[in-house]
């Protein structure tokens, strides 16, 4: 018996150690392009390139939410029907034969995006359109489109503001929908989009400072449009050439250090301050923590005390139950006291409330009101008559 208890203690300690190292148990990616139309080909190519990368690093389609507002592959203007390329060498067809677009066309709206993040969706919305992340999930949110100071345009029709996004992430945190979140955005004045974030454990990075444009990298002379944006291009270059497998030990610090302003033509930004452990800690997160897929399993740990753990939840519930019981007792006391004092204070406690319901407008005092009305009309007409008589005299 003693042996068994000691063994259990050791096991609990082990679990505790795992929990403290703050490992996540799943990876989710939300990849959003917000612009449609042929000349915005590059925004869809940006997203599709990233889609390809996260899939390569192991995140399954079921954990990727891909939002594409337009269908470039089938646009009649596409010289290469059925394909999307993000490079003029056209080596990799991003549209390929294994692609799962979860939100397409006019489904890509601000409302749908926020509903997706906060999981305020109808029950009948299929799993493919839901972000099924939990408190153990690392979430990558990548957005691209046309934006400005603290907004990002959705489809020429509406825009999402920096505060909208900040509040959506806060709700995600409150609903325990992420463990750590990496927010990436490639648009003009991108860095303004994450200025208002206030929820913990978010690392944010954007392509350009306020009042700066983000530029496209290069155009394909046969497709006839720009095929990728600069910042995304160089992020991808890092991911494709350096992060070759899920076992890569390169960390976010390496990724962000690879930004080269002379190549990107704008000043990319990084925000660490929301992250537990600030920059030192954040830099150590590996790239595959967000872009790859982990297979860690967390067994619920009875001793864990961090937010979101079972123990904390149980303690909270116990506290609530206690509170309610106390309230019930107090109420019972009051009732008991009322019973004893009924003889002289019943009217105080048990007086029936006055009936609330429709009442007749003219129920009481109708004659009085009529009289007042008549008097007012009389006085008015008297003034009018007097006025006209006097007026005639002086005239």
């Amino acid at each position, binding site marked *: 018996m003693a042996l068994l208890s000691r063994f259990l203690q050791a096991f609990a300690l082990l679990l505790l150690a795992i929990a403290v190292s703050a490992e996540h148990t799943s990876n989710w990616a939300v990849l959003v392009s917000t612009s449609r*139309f042929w000349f915005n080909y590059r925004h869809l190519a940006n997203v599709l390139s990233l889609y390809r990368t996260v899939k390569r690093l192991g995140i399954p389609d079921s954990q990727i939410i891909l939002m594409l507002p337009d269908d470039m592959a089938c646009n*009649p*203007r596409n*010289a290469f*029907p059925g394909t999307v390329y993000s490079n003029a060498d056209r080596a990799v067809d991003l549209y390929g034969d294994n692609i799962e677009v979860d939100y397409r066309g006019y489904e890509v709206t601000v409302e749908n995006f926020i509903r997706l993040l906060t999981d305020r969706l109808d029950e009948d919305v299929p799993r493919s359109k839901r972000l099924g992340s939990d408190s153990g999930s690392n979430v990558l949110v990548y957005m691209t489109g046309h934006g400005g100071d603290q907004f990002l345009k959705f489809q020429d029709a509406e825009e999402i503001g920096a505060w909208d996004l900040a509040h959506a992430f806060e709700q995600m945190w409150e609903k325990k929908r992420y463990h750590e979140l990496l927010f990436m955005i490639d648009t003009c004045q991108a860095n303004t989009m994450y200025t208002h974030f206030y929820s913990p454990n978010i690392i944010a990075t954007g392509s350009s400072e306020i009042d700066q444009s983000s530029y496209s990298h290069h155009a394909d002379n046969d497709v*006839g449009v720009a095929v990728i944006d600069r910042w995304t291009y160089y992020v991808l270059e890092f991911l494709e050439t350096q992060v070759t497998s899920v076992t890569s030990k390169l960390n976010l610090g390496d990724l962000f250090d690879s930004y080269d302003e002379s190549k990107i033509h704008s000043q990319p930004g990084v925000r660490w301050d929301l992250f537990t452990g600030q920059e030192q800690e954040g830099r150590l997160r590996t790239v595959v923590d967000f872009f790859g897929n982990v297979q860690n399993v967390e067994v619920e740990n009875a001793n864990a005390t961090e937010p979101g753990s079972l123990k904390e939840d149980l303690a909270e519930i116990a506290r609530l139950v206690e509170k309610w019981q106390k309230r019930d007792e107090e109420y019972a006391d009051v009732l008991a006291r009322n019973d004893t004092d009924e003889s002289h204070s019943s009217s105080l406690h048990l007086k029936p409330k006055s009936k609330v319901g429709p009442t007749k407008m003219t129920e009481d005092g109708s004659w009085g009101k009529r009289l007042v009305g008549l008097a007012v009309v009389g006085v008015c007409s008297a003034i009018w008559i007097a006025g006209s008589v006097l007026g005639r005299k002086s005239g």
Partner: protein
Amino acid sequence: MPAAIRNLRSNPHFLFVRLPKLLSLLCIVVGVAWLLLLPLNEYSRRTYISENALLPGQVHAYFTGSEQNIFRGYKKELEGILNDETKDRAEVTAGYVSRGGHAEQLLILDRVSDKVQSIFEEAGLKFARQKYEYNSAGITHQGENSYAIIHAPRGDATEAIVLVAPWLTADDKLNLNGVTLALTLARYFKRWSLWSKDIIFLITPDSKTGTQAWIDAYHDMHPASVQPLPLKSGALQGALVIEYPLEHRFQTLHIVYDGVNGQLPNLDLFNTAVSIAGGQMGIGANLQEMWNHDDSYENRLQTMVRGMTKQGLGYATGAHSSFMPYHIDAITLQTKGEGWEDEMALGRTIESLCRSLNNLLEHLHQSFFFYLLMQSNRFVSIGTYLPSAMLLAGNFTIMAIALWMRTGYYPETKSVQTKGEKAPAEEKAKTSNIAERKLALPLSLVVGLHLLGLVPLWVFNNVSHQYFTTITFVVLGVDIILPLSLAAILSNGLGLSKPLIPQQYHLIKSFSLLLLGLSLSTLATLNFSLSFMIGLLCTPLSFMTRLQGAAPARLATSGLGLALLNLLSPPTVLLGVCWYTGVSVETVLTEAAFGWDVWGMWTQVVVWCVWWPAWLIGGVLLGSSIF
């Protein structure tokens, strides 16, 4: 200072006689100076592409190599037929140009049309023809359009682009290279699968009538003499006209953009053409026949004035002009000069332009529709130039309002003649009296003269062209006699009525100027240049008045004034301009009548129903001082 202002305010002569004149003069001077400032860097802007979708010059144009052999083959085939039919090509074109008063025999004969049809059909396009006939000024214009459609292989056939190749260019030269290029491009475009819009290839017999007949029929707005179209596509988004009448390599592209009634295509289309020709293909782009534009102030002004002249006259400057009334943006690309560029370079330019238009998601609308270009990369927009014509038009309105107020005072002439001599109090008492305006005669005279304008309008658009010169001189005679006789009748009554009192002269002038100002300021928003030109020619009318004073001086002044005024009458201006440019009056008027009958040109209406009546009334007022 306040005292001085108060004195001026209580001085009716200053308020109603001198101040309006000063204001009017100021408006005219500022209006003209404004226009002269526009070419400066501070007032004009560099052009830019507004529409994101256009992406000019981003695609590689592949129209080279073997396509050139196809071009040569087609050209030889067409040339053979043309030579067979008409031993001498010059003879045919000359036959077309000379207007013998008979039905014009257009050069496009059935065999050529058949050849064009077989080439289009071999390339896999749907082909159709359309016959049309127009009658204007006793001349019959007839011809047959042929056109073919490439249906966008993956598009939805709701939109289309038009490529036009007229057999005769706007200068009546044979456009064999242009037509051949269109045929080659049709074959080449057919093999691309990336069209989002249908492409229509239209081969018209000439640049004046063909496109008009076709576009009218396309929108079911054609007269009975024009056949309906058997084959149609979607809404037209843009049109390009190809003109390559040269037999050698060319140097630059001349972009013609003026439409009928001064309508212009969206500036984005022009900018795209300049950007593709200059930037991508390395071919220079010119406008308004300015071959050696050195970007100096003088050259910019000259370009602008040339553009304004075309806009003001409102005639069609090429086959593209007919598209404008239907809100289809169109330009003509003309090859000019001797240089290194061949038909393949022009073909690539058109290919790239078509790809840009193909990228459009909606009708061109981002950029300006009202602009004045002064260099291929510099323009002023309506907000900057409009005040100029508005000030000119405003000068008439100011004068008209001042005269109206002046006629309300009684006794008007005395207070004018004896100003300052009477005590201010007495004068005030007088001016506060409100005089009754005798409106009947001034109103009917002004309305009558404006209605009279319908007579020359009808005559010039309905008689045969050989009488035009005679009628012009008749109108010139009428311009001399009519004001004088009207003045005589009005001044003396001639037993018909009482002689006019000064108030009525003022009222006549007031109404006339009011109408003129109103019409011109309205016109300025539609056709700035026409409004500005008419406004400038009418400026003396603000200052025409019945002269007073001693007989000899008065007679001499008014006689001289009338002579000068006659120099600014519509027929004299017409004759003067024709003499200066060396074009015969008959040609101009035939063209004008053709414009009225076929293109729906409104310039004559403005001349005969706005300018002429206002001028006549100016003449009557000045003439009345003789009697």
